[in-house]
């Protein structure tokens, strides 16, 4: 499914996202949560900070909202699984999310 990526830039909405930490780097899972009147964000499956009533004050929320791309829950779960795999495989690009992916250093895709 292809998400409409347009959004009101200063009015975040909860949902699943993917974002890059570096140009040409791997896509990393991210999520904006709104529950019990509190805003919060999870990046790489971990909370970005303490939730806050004001989304602009909640760590990570605006970063994900403005820099991320919407995905569905299935893709989000897949990225989390990949992230788990990368923790045991240091050569995987997700193990070094702040660097550009160098495809010439990776094993052939097929």
């Amino acid at each position, binding site marked *: 499914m292809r998400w409409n990526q347009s959004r009101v830039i200063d009015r975040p909405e909860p949902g699943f996202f993917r974002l890059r930490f570096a140009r040409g780097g791997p896509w990393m899972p991210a999520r904006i949560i709104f529950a019990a009147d509190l805003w919060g964000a999870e990046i790489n499956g971990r909370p970005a900070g303490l939730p806050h009533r004001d989304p602009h004050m909640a760590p990570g929320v605006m970063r994900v909202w403005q820099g991320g791309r919407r995905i569905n829950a299935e893709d989000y779960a897949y990225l989390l699984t990949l992230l788990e795999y990368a923790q045991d495989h240091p050569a995987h690009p997700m193990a070094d999310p702040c660097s550009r992916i*160098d*495809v*010439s250093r*990776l*094993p*052939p*895709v*097929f």
Partner: protein
Amino acid sequence: MATKSQTRLMADAGLYGIGLTPPGVGHNSGEPEGTLIQLDIDVLNLELGRRLERHEARRDELLAAVARFDKANPAIRSDDVQQRATDFVRQLRAWSREVEEHRKFEKLPVLNAQRAVDNLFADFAASIAKAALDVEAKMTGYARQKARLAREQAEAEATRLRAEAAERERAAATRGGSLDGAIAASQAADQAAQRATAPAAELSRVHSDLGGVASLRATVRHRVMNFDAIPRRYLALDDAAVKLAGKGWRPNDPQPIPGVEFFVEEKVAVR
């Protein structure tokens, strides 16, 4: 050591008197000291082959992956495979790019040396090359004049001999003498007329004492006087202008150039 005929030639030309010595055997066979840059192509190939070894493992790995890809996917039927194929093409291109960069790295000193040699020799030889052109320009002027004069003389000679032949023919008719003189004059007139129509190269040719030959060379050149009058078979399509006219064209748009069909060719682009 000059041969006997060379010595005689130089002596005849009076060149000893101005301090020139006759050239020896092999004088025109290149630099006697050998070239400054020594390149052994076999050694070069050997060394480059050794340096290319660093790319071999990855190449073999990728080729094995290509074989696996082809076997598993005679055609691509899903987004998943298309996505992976995107990264695969990027991997293949990354290898090609790496090897290309390596080639440029290895070739750079050769290119620089080539440019240095070319520039130095071009600058060094420029004044004499220009002088040769200047002398040739003067020679062309003289050769044209010589050919024109020779042609005019031959034409005048032909006219004179024809008149003489006619006069002798008349004299023979009135006095009843022989026509031999008239025939000879007529033949000489024909020969002179033939000389007058000889090619400019023949009329202008000179042979130098040292074996050089100079003559007018006629080269056919052209310039466009009326573009619209030129038959189509001599015209070439301006591809750049046609491409520009088709920029932004969509399949339902009218064709912008009569006689040219714009169509869309689709090909995957991998970034």
